[in-house]
């Protein structure tokens, strides 16, 4: 799941200052689950912004709407008839949603209300941690289901580095050393000998460095 975090309200205030009619647009998927940009967070932010601007004596119209997703055309169409009533849209969706909304409403300024952080899992209520870097060529079968690219600060493919200490990473004592986790898991799977298999040099072109990526499934495409 995409994990995002609310932007500091001070930053948002700076961005929306110049717009009189504002729509705060939430998303019912990932940002709802990570409690950053769902209906509830839209309500909280709207109320906080209204309080601020009223205190400042500035008149503003701040409306709230939450779509099922902002990364699908069909859901974004739902605001087609009201979009021109606003001077700007403050989107609490992840970076994908903000951009897709901007593409569909390209004459309406789009302001992001959250920082999109990473692909991760919900460890416990209120705590989300990174698990995947979307490298495009998954090696989890070889590393006991633990990813060294997203969970090792140096993304070493043949770790651990010399800084691993008591199972924790050299950059932060609270951060698990990914390679300690991999070794523990290989041991539990009875495959500790696999540790000595040298992981080959990574093909990074399927990752960000190869340029913006695209996935196509021709068999499900509608048009010819």
């Amino acid at each position: 799941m995409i994990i995002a975090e609310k932007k500091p309200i001070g930053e948002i205030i700076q961005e929306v200052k110049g717009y009189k009619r504002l729509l705060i647009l939430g998303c019912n998927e990932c940002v709802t689950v990570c409690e950053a940009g769902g209906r509830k967070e839209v309500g909280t932010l709207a109320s906080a912004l209204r309080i601020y601007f009223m205190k400042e004596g500035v008149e503003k119209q701040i409306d709230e709407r939450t779509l099922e997703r902002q990364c699908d055309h069909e859901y974004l169409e739902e605001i087609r008839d009201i979009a021109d009533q606003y001077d700007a849209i403050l989107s609490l969706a992840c970076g994908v949603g903000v951009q897709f909304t901007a593409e569909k409403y390209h004459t309406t300024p789009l302001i992001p209300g959250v920082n999109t952080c990473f692909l991760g899992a919900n460890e416990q209520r209120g705590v989300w941690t990174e698990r995947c870097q979307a490298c495009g060529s998954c090696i989890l079968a070889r590393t006991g289901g633990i990813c060294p690219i997203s969970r090792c600060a140096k993304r070493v493919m043949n770790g651990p580095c010399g800084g691993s200490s008591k199972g924790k990473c050299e950059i932060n004592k609270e951060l698990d050393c990914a390679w300690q986790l991999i070794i523990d898991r290989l041991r539990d799977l009875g495959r500790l000998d696999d540790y000595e298999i040298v992981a080959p040099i990574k093909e990074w072109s399927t990752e960000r460095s190869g340029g913006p990526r695209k996935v196509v499934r021709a068999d499900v495409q509608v048009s010819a």
Partner: protein
Amino acid sequence: MADKFEPQIIGFCCKYCAYAAADLAGSMRLSYPSCIKIVQVPCTGRIDVIHILKAIEEGADGVMVAGCLEGECHFLTGNLKAKKRVKYVRKILEDIGIEPERVVMFNLSSAMGPRFAEIATEMADTIKKIGPSRVRS
């Protein structure tokens, strides 16, 4: 002073402790400021960030959240959840330039009639000192 400022304070009180204490204060004929408008909730855990913000948005000068003593919540941890949410709201208020002291959480037991009167008075005094909310709804 020309106009005496009469604060409007919403007091969210949990049924099992705070509201009962307020009732007791009443039966004991203890006076406490009438500017506290009491709203009964089953547990302070029922109160979310939005309820407090809405009160401020609608013009409340202060919001008081009163629940059971810690460790004695009728629903076990409702008051602890409320504590976190009150802290969160205070941070939001600080970030938007509103005095965080306008929102306060208190803990007391149902037997503490005098304490209820005390916290109500304390709350009213705090708000009178800070002054009216600059948020006009």
